[in-house]
């Protein structure tokens, strides 16, 4: 393995962040006073001392080549004394200490169509997402591809048009939900719809007791097929969660015909106004339709339109829906309400309507 075990350095942690703070930040650390968003992608912060820091935010596909990062570094060297940061939604932020360099930076960015300025304030920022077919064994759909398609369709809300409030979109390519889509205004979630298949060689790869006990619904039973120890799945009791596949590679759920997308709405994480909320099911299943997933982008645009037409200023998606009521949401979007929308998991009972507070 390593040639020089003697010199091995471990547990040093990341570099201390102070190394990466522009001088104006270092001087005013924790002493910011106010900010102003000038355009959907440009803002400045002003410190108690009066010092100002401008930020220019540009979109990123999150998958960045080292060459692109070097391009970005070139721009940061030219206009930002070499300082930049990334955001929690994976955008790039150029930190401009010298206000006179703001316009030149923007001009340079505008020269390269890769750089789209935006993502601030009440609009749609980048989509938090995951690996998909680019890297993960578990995915029911691709991640980066759908993100690209959706952002192409809604980019005006990234860089120009403002909305009543923020719409935070997230995508995860399987129920593990690495994108934490469970609390998003709009969540795009890859789902399997078909119970796992059992590979012939299961007994060689997987521990049968572990596999059986991995199933939250108890759908997996030990079985013997052709003299080999294996498992069998009670398909009626299987909800295609793929937890068995996580512990046992011989139970793949991936299936071109039956994998696809579900759409969830109305979650949020900020404490602003209302408490954080989970996303709720809007559309149980849309088949995968690469490369441009038109049904998914249409569904997202439809929901955004209903939001624009109905939300009050500052209201998030979930807040709007709670105000107008879920029946109205389904009515306005034209999304079909089905049995699948009715919870049947652990706390299902707490989601039944136990009052006569109804609109007619």
């Amino acid at each position: 393995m390593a040639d020089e075990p003697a010199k091995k350095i471990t547990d040093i942690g990341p570099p201390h962040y102070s190394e990466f703070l522009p001088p104006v930040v270092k001087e005013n650390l924790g002493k910011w006073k106010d900010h102003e968003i000038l355009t959907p992608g440009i803002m400045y912060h002003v410190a108690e001392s009066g010092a100002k820091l401008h930020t220019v935010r540009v979109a990123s596909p999150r998958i960045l080549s080292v060459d692109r990062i070097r391009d970005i570094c070139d721009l940061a060297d030219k206009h930002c004394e070499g300082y930049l940061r990334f955001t929690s939604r994976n955008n790039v932020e150029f930190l401009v200490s010298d206000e006179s360099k703001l316009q030149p930076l923007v001009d340079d960015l505008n020269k390269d169509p890769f750089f789209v300025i935006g993502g601030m304030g009440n609009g749609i920022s980048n989509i938090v997402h995951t690996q998909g077919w680019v890297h993960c064994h578990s995915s029911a759909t691709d991640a980066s591809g759908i993100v690209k398609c959706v952002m192409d369709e809604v980019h005006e809300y990234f860089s120009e048009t403002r909305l009543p409030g923020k719409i935070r979109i997230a995508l995860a390519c399987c129920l593990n939900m690495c994108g934490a889509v469970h609390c998003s205004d709009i969540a795009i979630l890859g789902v399997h719809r078909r119970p796992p298949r059992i590979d012939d060689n299961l007994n060689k790869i997987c521990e049968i007791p572990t596999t059986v006990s991995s199933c939250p619904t108890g759908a997996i039973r030990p079985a013997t097929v052709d003299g080999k120890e294996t498992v069998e799945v009670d398909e009626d009791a299987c909800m295609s969660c793929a937890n068995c596949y996580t512990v046992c590679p011989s139970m793949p759920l991936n299936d071109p015909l039956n994998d696809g997308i579900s759409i969830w709405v109305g979650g949020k994480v900020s404490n602003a106004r209302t408490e954080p909320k989970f996303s709720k099911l809007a559309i149980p299943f849309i088949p995968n339709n690469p490369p441009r997933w038109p049904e998914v982008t249409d569904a997202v645009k439809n929901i955004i339109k209903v939001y624009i037409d109905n939300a009050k200023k500052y209201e998030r998606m979930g807040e709007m829906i709670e105000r107008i009521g879920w029946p109205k949401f389904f009515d306005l979007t034209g999304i079909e309400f089905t049995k699948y929308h009715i919870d049947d998991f652990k706390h299902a009972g707490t989601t039944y309507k136990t009052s006569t507070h109804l609109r007619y």
Partner: protein
Amino acid sequence: MAEPKKYDTPLLDELEKGAFPSFVTEIKRMAARKPMAADLLGQLEKSYRDKIGYWKHGGLVGVMGYGGGVIGRYSAKADEFPEVSHFHTIRVNQPSGWFYNTEKLRLLCDIWDNHGSGLTNMHGSTGDIVFLGTRTEELEPIFSELTQGGWDLGGSGSCMRTPSCCVGPGRCEWALYDTLAVTYQLTMDFQDEMHRPPFPYKFKFKMAGCPNDCVASIARADMSIIGTWRDAIQVDAAALKSEYIDKGTDIQSDVVEMCPTRCMKFDGETLDIDNANCTKCMHCINVLHHALAPGKDRGACILVGSKAPIVEGALLSSVIVPFVKLDTPKEGEDPYPELMELIEKMWDFWGENGKNRERIGEMIQRIGLGNFLEEIEVDPIPEMIVHPRTNPYIFFEEYFEDDDEAETE
């Protein structure tokens, strides 16, 4: 090095159209000179055609002495795309707040250009710098170059995962404690927990400077540390007038009527806040930021247990400590003593009582918050709950025996 192979990618090419920057462009850029990136492109095109991923379950790969930081990945179509037969990712611990200078960033690029696909995620969902795709034999060299350059790996497996935080005091006027410093402190204090799996399952920290929670900590951190304040909102009456009232902001409908506790009154001139009933939601401050600011008695609320749904259903973090001071330690002081003590107690108890692959939040759901509090020696208070129990199923722990008057356990 072999020449990168050229693939026809009619489907992926469609994803270079449109206004938003394209990941396909990035892969192609590397594919032009890197065979691994080229085969990734080829395999991905195949996935797009067949509507299925072609990656196998990961195996156990890593760097010596570490139990995490690398996700093993192998192609299921290695015959067709031999250059991605190995396609492991490396998680590099990002700096607090994702701040960089170009020098250190170029260093990362150079290491990765030399030893991997040249493709990254800036950043992974947990917060790491993700190096996407390399071979097993490259792991040690990469690691060694990283550490020599001052970088280290992030977490994976049943470790503490890489802590992350919002920009906080680095650029935000609402940072109610120093998220950058706390994140760095936790990362450094728990290097061992990050690199050598000590827990029943993963443990994530996320630090947000205020209740806006720009790092989504309440939804995806085993411990969510969210800045808040205890005293009155600071109101600059002059700014309120000049910046909002005079400019025609509809304070009544945009602010007062959206306050969750409706604890504000506005008569057209003064904004009267009943601070005892303010639940620190940030909304009024967000909207009227030129005039309003959080109070001066600042600290954080500690919440525990959020996670994604697998397998008992998604959880949000819930309040364990309504308010704790997190002032920057002075020279010679122990940093954040209450926080550190809490972490130790929680980890000790979870370490002993958590089942395999059971997150701390799931354990709390299983044993009950009341019992958990007792074990970690935190007093139960009504701030921790939405409302007291509605069911009468109380496990009374003591009762009187017939023959004595003393309560027994």
